């Protein structure tokens, strides 16, 4: 009989004891804020007891990964003060000693990720936050641990800046074009010179117009021909 009363007391008292451990603004607790509709829009799921169970399980998972020696369970994550927002407070108690709270700093280390490159690289502790987010299909912004700053998404820094690549392509094409034009104009000039030497009769005509007029490929306006020549010819 006494044993039964004791068991009853324990069963009643333990949760009550646990509840007193978890309070809003508890020194070793964290507040969590979840925005499912913002993240998922039409595909938002409803936050209910089962989702809360999943949260407790993932927190226990995070604690297990951090403290590799101790085995945490769902009972070790105590949740309270849930609001419609959805937000709630949680504390973590040690599996060996139910009255002892895990310090805030340790919980933070277990939860937060170190600075990672996107996509997540498998570094031991950094995966936790990423995994917690993924369990709920949320992001750092929609699953907030107030007080634990989300890691800054480091911008991707490729080894060669992409703009240099584009610039290289463009300038290469331009230089190729310039060289092609120069070479072709030289070839044309040489062809015309050969034509001039073979055809001597045109020399006189050309001299009338001025030697500078021999090459007209570049479209430069040539003023070699002036009125004076014409007058003297007459």
């Amino acid at each position, binding site marked *: 009989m006494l044993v039964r009363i004791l068991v009853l007391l324990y069963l009643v008292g333990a949760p009550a004891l646990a509840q007193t451990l978890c309070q809003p603004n508890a020194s070793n607790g964290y507040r969590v*804020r*979840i*925005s*499912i*509709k*913002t993240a998922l829009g039409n595909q938002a799921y409803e936050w209910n007891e089962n989702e809360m169970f999943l949260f407790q399980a993932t927190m226990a998972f995070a604690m297990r990964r951090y403290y590799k020696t101790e085995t945490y369970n769902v009972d070790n994550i105590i949740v309270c003060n849930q*609001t*419609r*927002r*959805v*937000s709630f407070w949680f504390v973590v108690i040690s599996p060996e000693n139910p009255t002892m709270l895990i310090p805030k700093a340790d919980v933070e280390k277990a939860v937060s990720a170190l*600075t990672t490159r996107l996509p997540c690289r498998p570094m031991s502790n950094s995966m936790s936050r990423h995994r917690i987010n993924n369990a709920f299909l949320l992001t750092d912004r929609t699953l907030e641990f107030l007080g634990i700053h989300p890691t*800054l998404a*480091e*911008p991707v820094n490729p080894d060669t800046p*992409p*703009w*240099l*690549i*584009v*610039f290289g392509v*463009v*300038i290469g094409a*331009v*230089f190729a*074009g*310039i060289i092609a*034009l*120069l070479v072709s*104009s*030289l070839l044309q*000039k040489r062809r015309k010179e050969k034509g001039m030497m073979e055809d001597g009769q045109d020399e006189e005509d050309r001299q009338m*117009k001025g030697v*500078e*007029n021999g*090459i*007209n*490929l*570049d*479209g*430069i*306006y*040539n*003023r070699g*021909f*002036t*009125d004076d020549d*014409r007058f003297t010819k007459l």
Partner: protein
Amino acid sequence: MPEEGMENSKGGEERPKWNNKAEYLLTCIGFAVGLGNVWRFPYLCQIYGGGAFLIPYLIALVFQGLPLLYLELAIGQRLRMGSIGVWNSISPYLGGVGVASMVVSLCVSLFYNTIVAWVLWYLFNSFQEPLPWSQCPLNHNNTGYVEECVESTPVNYFWYRKTLNITPNMETSGSLQWWMVVSLATAWSIVYICFIRGSRPSAVYVTATFPYLVLTIFLVRALTLPGSSEGLIYLFTPDVRPLSNPQVWLDAATQIFFSLSVAFGGLISFSSYNSQKNNCERDAVLVGVINSATSIYASIPIFAILGFKAHTNYVTCLNGNILALTNEFDISDMNITVENYEQWFDSLNGTHPSRVSDLNLKTCDLQTFLDQSASGTGLAFIVFTEAVISMPGSQVWAVLFFIMLFSLGLSSMFGNLEGVLTPLHDLKLVPKWMPNELFTGKTLICLVLFLVSLIFTLGSGNYWLEIFNSYVGSVPLLIIAFFEIIAVAYIYGIGRFSDDLEFMTGHRPNIFWKVCWLVISPLMLFVVLVAYVAVQAQTHPTYPAWNPDYVNFPDTEVLPYPDWVFAICVLLSSVPVIFIPLVAIYRLICCMSGRHSEDRLHNDPNPYANEGYVVES
């Protein structure tokens, strides 16, 4: 493509010729339609009462823009020379007008190609995911984002720091920014390759038509974006109240004037390659109307996108407030939305005013966001890039936009350089020992221009560019145009000019053109010039400096120009114009000392006198 035409009445010089009429028109349109059509006209429309601004704009076009344009195309076509030769022909004392045009074209080429280099830089950077101006970079120890970026915006940071690396004021010159030098070299190389060999005509088919294609694509896309209709309504709602402000008329007149690119000498050169029997009246009206139509057409997608940007900013602002309220009062997620925000706010403010006021919510007003306007580089590189980030498929839109700006700038650069190269050939400044092959003349000029424009790649380069833009590209052009119109209407004589026009187009100019050339246009130009100078003189010249240490950062710090800079400004305005009296005095001295033998090569005989010369005799 030179034509050895002996039928030219100007003594049979060989002048390059257009392949066909379309090339000529496209080149003129490409020269006239430039960056200003896209980023200055919509801004003016916005600040001066939307649709109502079209009234002073069209009046300025009809009474000032078209007559000037017709005049330049006509004298170029008739006298068949570049700007210096043309004015020398009309009167030797007015040769200075041509020299002034050339100097202005030279200075404008310098800074205009720098803008093209900026566009290229942004184009190169648009091929990244995500766009580099969409997020802030991390600082040294990876603890947070760069402070300058956080305090302003990522777009501002990318423009002022990553692109310009701007110094806090003009006295600090900073150093040459290598990435800017590289972009500038690319810009000059592309201009060079289009210019040598006269291959410019083939490039013009692309550079003149491509912007229209892109504008149409943007129009279609922009109209499907949320918030675009608000931008369009904002733009086109006519508000006649600002029309009583004389500043509106001044801005309309200057906008038309600079937009048509008259007084640069480039248009004269272009039309000098025409045959003499070309109907330049129709060409002038066509180019002028197309230029203005392009401005109006460009403002539609620009403003649709600005409306979209304002809408996005408004929604972001509201969402920030909504999040604050939701978190503070533990309301269920997404219960407060953009639609019912007002009601929630009123009810919460009624019940818990102190808590609500502690949140320091921002006032989100769509009108304020729509009023945030910008023109020029601010529009293209700050406002538009910010809008592009929010559009799905940002890279495509960014690439398209900057290619459009690039082709607009390139086609205008052709005209600028034409205004420099043709007079130089006319003046025969290229020494005889320089071989004509390998285009050394053009190569040298492009190289020299590139080296000089390296000033604009310094840390303080943007400040210098603004100075060049304001002082070279404004008052000297007005003065040159004034002298042009006086020279043709009064010194050359309206009678002789009408005879020339009859020879070229087949009919004499009607009374409208004559009245404009004789009275209205010179008067308008004179009034605009005086008013412009008066307005500029009233305000002590200052410039907005980007200074991260400024107290009110991210607002720009308004600093006055140092004295030596101001002296340079005055120099820039007066040096082109000083050639007009200088050359007149020089000719007077030469004339009085009886030495006109060397003038004959430069000063061609009166074109009218050559009319009688026929080949057969």
